[in-house]
C-alpha cells in the first residue's frame, strides 16, 4: 500500500514568478523510507510542507495514509510527525518543558506526557540537558529534540526535512543512528537531503528532484549503477602522469580522466578497494610515488552530472523559506 502519494503537484511563489514545484510525483510504500534528494532550491521543503498540510499546492493531489491533505488536514495531522528544516522548538523553554507541552497538545494528559517526555529524552541522549533552555543546546541536540517532538505519538508517517544539514560529522553520525533505529521500528519515512551518502545510508528508495520535478527514481544501488559507482582518484608528480593514466585505465577498464591543474587522475571502478590495491601495486612496481590516492563515492554532483549532464545548480536567489 502507498502511504504517501503526491500527484502532479504544482506550487508557485511570488505570483507565479517562482515555480517551486512543477508537476511533481512521489509515492512512499508503507513501512519504507523514501529519500528526496536534491540541491538547494529544488523544492524539497515545499513538497514536505504541502504533504504536512502547512502549505497548499496550486494544483495536484496529495494523500497521506489515505487521507487527502487539502480536504482533511486535521485528520492528516493526527497521523504524521514532522521535523522541519529549521528545528522548531521553543528556544526559551527547556527540552523537558517542550516535550511535555507537545505531549499535552497531543492530548496525552499531563502524567502520560511527562512519562513520554522522559522516555524520549533518554532515548535521544538528552537527559542531562533536559532542564536547560534550548538556546543553550548545540545544533545537533536541537535537531534531536525537534525529532523527539515529532515522535511523541508514534506517527504513521514521519517527515524529516534535511535532518542533518548544518550538523558536524559527529552530529550527522548520531542523527543517522537515531533515524536508523526508527526505520528498524518500521516507520514510514519521507526524508529530504542534499547528500547522496545520506540517502544511501537511510533510504530504500531515492527520488532525485531538480527544479520542482523528479528526474530519477530508484533504489540507491540502481541509481549508483546509473552514476557509475565509486571513482578512483590518484594525484602524482607531473612527469608520472602519462604512465599513471595507463595504469589507472587498465585497472578501471575505462579511459581515465585527467585534471591537469590538480594533476588528478580519475576513473570509475566497480571493485572498490581491490582496484585501489591493484593500482597502488602497479604504481609501486613502476617506481611511481603517488602523492594522494583514494576512492571517492559519487556525490550529488556526480548524480546530477550523470542524470542531467550538468552539475547541481545552486539557485542564486536562495531565500530563507518562510511563509
Amino acid at each position, binding site marked *: 500500500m502507498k502511504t504517501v502519494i503526491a500527484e502532479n503537484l504544482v506550487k508557485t511563489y511570488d505570483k507565479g514568478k517562482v515555480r517551486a514545484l512543477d508537476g511533481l510525483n512521489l509515492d512512499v510504500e508503507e513501512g519504507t523510507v523514501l529519500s528526496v534528494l536534491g540541491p538547494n532550491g529544488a523544492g524539497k521543503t515545499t513538497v514536505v510542507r504541502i504533504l504536512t498540510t502547512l502549505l497548499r499546492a496550486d494544483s495536484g493531489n496529495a494523500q497521506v495514509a489515505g487521507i487527502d491533505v487539502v480536504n482533511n488536514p486535521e485528520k492528516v495531522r493526527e497521523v504524521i510527525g514532522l521535523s522541519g528544516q529549521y528545528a*522548531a522548538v521553543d528556544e*526559551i*523553554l527547556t527540552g523537558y518543558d517542550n516535550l511535555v507541552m507537545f505531549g499535552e497538545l497531543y492530548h496525552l494528559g499531563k502524567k502520560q506526557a511527562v512519562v513520554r517526555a522522559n522516555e524520549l529524552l533518554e532515548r535521544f541522549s538528552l537527559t542531562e540537558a533536559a532542564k536547560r533552555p534550548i538556546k543553550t543546546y548545540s545544533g545537533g541536540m536541537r535537531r534531536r529534540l525537534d525529532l523527539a517532538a515529532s515522535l511523541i505519538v508514534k506517527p504513521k508517517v514521519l517527515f524529516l526535512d534535511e535532518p542533518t544539514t548544518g550538523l558536524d560529522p559527529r552530529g550527522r553520525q548520531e542523527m543517522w543512528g537515531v533515524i536508523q533505529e526508527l526505520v528498524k521500528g518500521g516507520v514510514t519515512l519521507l526524508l529530504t537531503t542534499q547528500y547522496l551518502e545520506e540517502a544511501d545510508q537511510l533510504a530504500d528508495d531515492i527520488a532525485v528532484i531538480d527544479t520542482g520535478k523528479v528526474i530519477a527514481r530508484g533504489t540507491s544501488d540502481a541509481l549508483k549503477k546509473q552514476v557509475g559507482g565509486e571513482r578512483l582518484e590518484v594525484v602524482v608528480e607531473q612527469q608520472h602522469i602519462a604512465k599513471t593514466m595507463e595504469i589507472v585505465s587498465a585497472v578501471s577498464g575505462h579511459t581515465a580522466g585527467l585534471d591537469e591543474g590538480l594533476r588528478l587522475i580519475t576513473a570509475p571502478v566497480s571493485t572498490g578497494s581491490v582496484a585501489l590495491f591493484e593500482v597502488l601495486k602497479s604504481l609501486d612496481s613502476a617506481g611511481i610515488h603517488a602523492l594522494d590516492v583514494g576512492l571517492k563515492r559519487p556525490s550529488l554532483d556526480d548524480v546530477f552530472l550523470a542524470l542531467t549532464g550538468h552539475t547541481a545548480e545552486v539557485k542564486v536567489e536562495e531565500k530563507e523559506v518562510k511563509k
Partner: protein
Amino acid sequence: MRALNDIYIITRRQLLLLSRVPEVLIFSTIQPVMFVLLFRYVFGGSIDTGQPGGYVQLLMPGIFVQTVAFTLAGTASGLAEDMKKGLIDRFRSLPISQSALVIGRTLGDSLLNIVVLAVMGIAGYVVGWRPSSGIGNIALGFLFLLFFGYALSWVGVLVGLSASDARVVQNVSFIVTFPLTFLSNAFAPTTGMPRALQYFAEWNPVSTMVAACRELFGLENQFGATAGSFPSEHPLVTSLFYMVVIMVIFIPLSLRKYRNYAE
C-alpha cells in the same frame, strides 16, 4: 473540550515563558513605573487639576490605560518571533484546534497584564494615588482595563501575523499606540489642545477608557470640546462599545489570517 484544553496549554506556555524570562515582566513594568514617576514629579507639579489629591489621581488611570494598550505590541512581537523561528509550523502540524495558538497567546498576554497592573497599582499607591470609590468599583475598573488589553491584543495578532519581521512589528505597534495614548486625556486635559484635535482626542478610545476608569475610581471627568456629547456623558458605555467593535472586527480577521497561513 479539546479546544479548551489546547487553549489552556498554550496559555500556560505563555506564562511559563514569562517565568523563564523574568526580564520581560520587569521591562513591561519598569517603563510604566518610570512614566508614573516622570509625570507625577516632573510634569505633575505644573499641571493644575483642581482635583482633590492632586494630579496623580488623574494620572494613574491614564498610565493604566497606556500600559494595557501596549499589549498590542507585546502580542504582535511575540507572535512574529514564533513565526520567525518556525514554531508556528510545528504548532500547525499538530492535531490541535487551529485557533488555540492565537487564542492562548491573547489570554496569556492578558494574564501578564494582571501582574503588570498589580505592580502599577502598588507603585501608584506609593506615590499618593488613592481611589475613593470603594472596592467594588475599583475592581470593576481593573476588570475593564484587562478587557481593553484583551481587545487590543487581537489587533496585535493581526499585526504580528501580517508583518514579515519582528522589528517591523515593534515599529508598527508603536506607531499605532503612541499617538493614540498621547492624543488623549491620559496625561493632560484636552482643553489645552487646538479644537480639531480636541474632537479627535475626546472620541479616542483611549480617552473614553481613561475617563471611564477615572469615573470608576471616583473622579470627576473633564471634557472640553465634546462636553455634553455621548462619549463625554457615558465614557463607560462608549468604551465597552469600542472594545466590542475592536473584537468583532479583529478576532475574525486574525483567525482567518492564521488559518489562511497555508495560502
